[in-house]
């Protein structure tokens, strides 16, 4: 069953897109800028997994927690040393975007310098035949990927319904007003960067067991996550999660008809179509400004 296999593959990569897109969207909603450095966190997480797991031979649980701690620290440091001073100077979102591009270049090339540009692998387990599912094959690793991602998305969804989530949404809705009612926006934004880099590291660890590491893979994944966030609706958390799955499915179903080399173009064509006809995204509601002029 080709179509079942394609749908399964779409779901697996789509769940990764969702998690990266959610992290990206948490920062976008609170600070209102496109954080390209997100790809840097992802790349860093992949290579730190390689460092702790393969080079230092730590126990996986210890290695994974170290990776998350280090990457969250890096994420918070970029906020503390670069984005916060920039916001203090009333920099526009475009300046933040350019600074984040610069940060990404620095992070990615640090990784390249430290580990080299060649492919690294963290897959140590022997390759086994996958389980049979409606005539399609799915490996244990892939099941773990989907389950962990689903858990992560659910946790964030529940978190957003608590008081913490309310504070987040207040900052996302109106930064100044949130400040007026006594919310420390700086702390909330720091938390957003923490969540974002944590989700990037989980995605990197999971996908590391499926696809080998290269220093530039993070950028490509971030681009897909950005597209997912936009087609889902960048102003809602459900949108980012939904967009990831939709994008993953669309790309894989396209393989059915088109050669796989056009997969990226399918994603960008989808982006342009959404920007043209529904810039609010799938889950977006009218009234939430999504970069569309009112004319």
């Amino acid at each position, binding site marked *: 069953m080709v179509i079942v296999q394609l749908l399964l593959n779409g779901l697996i990569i789509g769940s990764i897109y969702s998690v990266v897109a959610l992290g990206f969207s948490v920062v976008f909603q609170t600070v209102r*800028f*496109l954080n390209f450095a997100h790809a840097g966190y992802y790349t860093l997480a992949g290579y730190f997994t390689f460092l702790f797991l393969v080079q230092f031979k730590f126990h996986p649980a210890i290695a994974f927690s170290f990776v998350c701690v280090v990457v969250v620290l890096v994420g918070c440091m970029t906020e503390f040393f*670069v984005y916060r*001073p*920039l916001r203090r*100077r*009333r*920099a*526009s*979102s*475009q*300046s*933040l*975007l*350019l*600074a984040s*591009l*610069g*940060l*990404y*270049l*620095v992070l*990615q*090339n*640090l990784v*390249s*310098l430290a580990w*080299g*540009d060649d492919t690294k692998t963290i897959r140590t387990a022997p390759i086994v035949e996958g389980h049979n599912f409606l005539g399609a094959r799915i490996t244990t690793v892939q099941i773990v990927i989907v389950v962990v991602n689903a858990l992560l998305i659910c946790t964030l969804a529940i978190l957003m319904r608590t008081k913490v989530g309310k504070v987040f949404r207040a900052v996302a809705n109106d930064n100044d007003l949130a400040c007026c009612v006594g919310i420390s926006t700086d702390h909330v934004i720091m938390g957003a960067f923490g969540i974002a880099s944590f989700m990037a590291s989980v995605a990197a660890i999971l996908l590391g067991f499926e696809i080998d590491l290269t220093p530039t893979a993070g950028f490509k994944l971030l*681009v897909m996550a*950005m*597209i997912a966030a*936009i087609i889902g609706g960048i102003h809602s958390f459900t949108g980012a999660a939904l967009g990831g799955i939709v994008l993953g499915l669309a790309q894989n179903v396209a393989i059915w008809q088109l050669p796989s*080399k*056009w997969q*990226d*173009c399918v994603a*960008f*064509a989808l*982006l*342009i179509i959404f*920007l*043209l006809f529904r*810039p609010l995204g799938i889950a977006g509601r009218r009234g939430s400004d*999504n*970069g*569309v*002029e009112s*004319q």
Partner: protein
Amino acid sequence: MDYSLHILILVAIYAGSAISLDLIAGHTGLVSLCHAAFHGLGAYTTALLATRAGIPFPVSILAGVVIAVLLSFAISLPSFRLHGDYFTIATFGFQMILFGLFNNWIELTRGPLGVPGIPAPVIFGWHVDTNLEFLVLAASFCCFSGFVVYRITNSPFGRVLHAIREDEVFAQANGKNTLYYKVAAFAVSAALASSAGSISAHYVTFIDPTSFTVMESILVLSMVIIGGAGSPLGPMVGAMILVTLPEALRFMDLPTSVAANLRQMIYGSLLVVMMMFRPQGLVGRYRFGR
């Protein structure tokens, strides 16, 4: 001597291209990430016309310009309904699609193999085949680009572009059809970028898709920002610095892969430092994004 000529030619081509990007990024305030895609359009058009059909250089460069302008409409007309960061994303998408075309449309572009053996350009009987002559060509292109952008930005048309940058709603309230101004500025910028691509393709005599990635777009954008956005000299200074500075790494006897990574790290850290401490760039006056 030949080496310094080579550097000067690169500086001139990049400067001409950075000036054209400045028209849209610095003067109109729209960050575009698809400048390398327009380079690629120009480069592939002239390269294919010259190697397959033997079309003379002045005709093929014009063909490249026409294609770039038409495609710039395809991207600018719809995406100017969006503002700010969404325009950046749309240009980014355009950049990735065009890279995909260069890389995957193997029947036309030969894909990753690239197009080799691009002949030296002949402009109305003038054979541009030595490096010195190429420098003259590149420098005159750079001057032309600077002249066009300078004239545009110091005209009533340019004042509208500046008004759009500062406050688009205000410009509309004054009866300006801002869509028209933005589309026109983007088309001029695309046309100049395409010519820069054509000239560099004929200079290097070989093109492949890796010269037209989004990293190249970021490089040209960094030149604009680091030199000083929205100023006549800024992009030229930026091009000079970002082309020559990495060349200094060559003399430090580093392995090539390390040198390439260090170069990108320099671009990256310069971008961050500039945004934090000198948003007007090295020689500019307009404080970008404030």
